């Protein structure tokens, strides 16, 4: 255990920081594929019930995306920014290709547009 707090407390702290009620958190969790009901989630947040690892990750996705939104909304925009060619941005499909490459030798049908040989 590297965390000083149990994970459910991290979730509860993140929920509060995200400004969400338990119900809003549950709707967010439902939106990214969560399958436990609102009472299960509330019980987990208060340390009164278990939540499987995969459901915990779904819950994390929901609350982390909300925290990102809040953080981004609070950021001050830059006056001068440079535009990058799309191929230099981390494209989610390219990342998925990498993940498939690392996981199994099976070829995917998509040919990566750029050389991604490193790693």
């Amino acid at each position, binding site marked *: 255990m590297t965390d000083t707090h149990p994970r459910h407390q991290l979730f509860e702290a993140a929920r509060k920081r995200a400004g969400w*009620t338990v*119900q*809003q958190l549950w*709707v*967010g969790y*439902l*939106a*990214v*594929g969560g399958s436990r009901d609102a009472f299960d989630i509330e019980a987990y947040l208060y340390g009164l019930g278990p939540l499987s690892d*995969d459901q915990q*990750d*779904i819950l994390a*996705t929901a609350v982390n*995306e909300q925290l990102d939104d809040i953080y981004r909304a609070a950021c001050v925009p830059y006056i001068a920014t440079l535009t990058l060619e799309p191929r230099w*941005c*981390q*494209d*989610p*499909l390219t*990342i*998925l290709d990498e*993940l*498939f490459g690392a*996981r*199994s030798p*099976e070829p*995917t*049908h*998509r040919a990566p547009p750029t050389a991604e040989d490193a790693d």
Partner: protein
Amino acid sequence: MTDSPRFSDAPQRLEELTAVLAQMGAVVLSAETIDSTIELVTTLAAETIPATTGAGVTLVDAHGKRSMAASDPLVERADALQYQFDSGPCLTAWRDQVTVRVDDIDGETRWPQWTAAVAELDLRAMLSVPLVTSGAAIGAIKVYSGQPAAYNARAERLLELFARQAAILLSNTQALADARRLSAQLIEALNNRDIIAQAQGVLIAQGAANDQAAFAMLATASQRSNTKMTAVARRVIASAISRNPSRSGT
């Protein structure tokens, strides 16, 4: 004191009050919004309590968000000053769940900052009653008068009776609004969920071990590309469709 002349027409007032309460009862059926309901309650309160210059209603929801209405700009000013100082008779009524009566703002000492600021307005007396449903204070209703000692014990009782009905009405309207908001959020949530589930299916077809592995891949791609998971899922689906031979074949 000034009791008897104002309430000599008590039976007539009771009849009026009954009509007022019936009017409030019809609101839920017509599915008003919370704002229009607050406005209606405010107007009715101003008409119901004798010697009233203006009335106001403040509603505080579960997230501490305030909605308010005032039947008169003076009331709006007097109310705004309370929130500015975070102190005043209505806030006391709401927080302590008690009826608060100010006979004369000139001699009032309980809220010194507010009293000093409100002195320049043409208001002398006020009465504030908490809006309570099932034990919780959801806000406060208040009436102001330009005459000192405008409100007595009977006016207090009248406003308390009014507030009890208003609280039920407002909390029902709020519950209805919450339910509507939730169902709209659920529809959006289910749409997103469908997209993620479809993308998981695509990834499984491409070799992901199971739906959990597919989710982990989506989550990783979402974090590393700094893109929302639903946006990643949309890309995955679009990419699968573009590779579909039945689409490009003919």
